[in-house]
């Protein structure tokens, strides 16, 4: 992330200097900082709602039940946390939200990250599980990409939903490929907590 961030900033500034549009760069950077704050404020309500609901599910035992049901499948992807019901339940809720395209995917995903961090910290087991969750979430396997379909419908498509099959297939392959890379790279000697 260090290298990525530096490359973004330095290459941006160099290109702006060469192209002579430093003024555009200035306003664009300030706008970026503003957008981050706006996004956080926009997300705050959704987060309160979903983490509140998650807490209810947690204390009533629904999360543990979800963990028990999903363990046979998700245990294969998360071998290091499969016996912790709180973590498995949160992971399971995140992945279900992802697949259904619910607004709860990020709030529940961050909740799952917090559960992993709390129990395992930045150990090998903890980081391995966190990266697995991030790779699955970033690949965005979803049976119904509502954003694109809404856009297509708004622009007068006769069949806006036709893209759902192809995007689901692409999301599935993306998830598998990401997990494969994670599996290979987590065996390298440099990956130590």
């Amino acid at each position, binding site marked *: 992330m260090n290298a990525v961030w530096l490359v973004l900033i330095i290459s941006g500034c160099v290109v702006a200097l060469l192209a002579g549009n430093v003024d555009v*760069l200035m306003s664009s950077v300030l706008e970026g900082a503003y957008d981050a704050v706006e996004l956080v404020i926009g997300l705050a309500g959704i987060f309160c*709602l979903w*983490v509140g609901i998650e807490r209810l599910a947690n204390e009533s035992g629904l999360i543990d039940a979800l963990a028990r049901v999903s363990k046979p499948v998700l245990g294969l992807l998360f071998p290091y946390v499969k016996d912790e019901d709180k973590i498995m339940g949160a992971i399971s809720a995140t992945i279900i939200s992802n697949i259904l395209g619910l607004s709860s995917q990020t709030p529940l995903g961050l909740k799952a990250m917090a559960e992993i961090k709390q129990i395992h910290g930045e150990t090998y087991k903890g980081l391995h599980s966190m990266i697995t969750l991030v790779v699955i979430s970033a690949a965005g396997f979803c049976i119904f990409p509502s954003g694109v379909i809404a856009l*297509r419908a708004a622009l007068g498509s006769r069949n806006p939903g036709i893209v759902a099959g*192809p995007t689901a297939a*692409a999301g599935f392959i*993306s998830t598998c490929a990401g997990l494969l890379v*994670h599996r290979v790279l987590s065996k390298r000697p440099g990956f130590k907590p």
Partner: protein
Amino acid sequence: MFFLANLGMYVFPIILIGVPLYAWVKGVPVYETFVKGAEEGLQVVINTLPYLVAIFVGISCFRGSGALDLVSRYMGRLLKPLGIPSEVLPIIVTRPISGSGSLGVTGEILRVHGPDTSLGLLASILQGATDTSFYVVTIYFGSVGIRKTKHALPACLIGDLCGFLTGFIIWRLMVYGR
């Protein structure tokens, strides 16, 4: 199709009614518990702000300077032999970095060429194929205060690339039948 389209819509109220009702039956003080959770949710969101500012500033620097357009152009030459139409290349380059940015590019293609043309179809598939990897890595690790993300980003980006290629291959099969 209709059922799938509305699945999320039906699941939402079921969760919204079902979870608190179940908790109430189990004797959980529902209102207090919800508020406690909401408080935690707010804390999580606030924790992500410094990380989001950092990544947004980096990305807008890269985009606002025109560097992103340059990369799109050169990536275009590299990907040309695969037969990917040059119009959609900005989507492939922008999608992992900025969700709103690539949605803008997709919207423009759909407007100019029409959503039901082969180009409009490809743009839609690529846009829907993955999520915004930079954003997900930033917000997930940021919320728990972890700065060293190890190989999370490369794994996500390679995953994205495979997703795009899958989308492209399926599009070719749909449009050309081979």
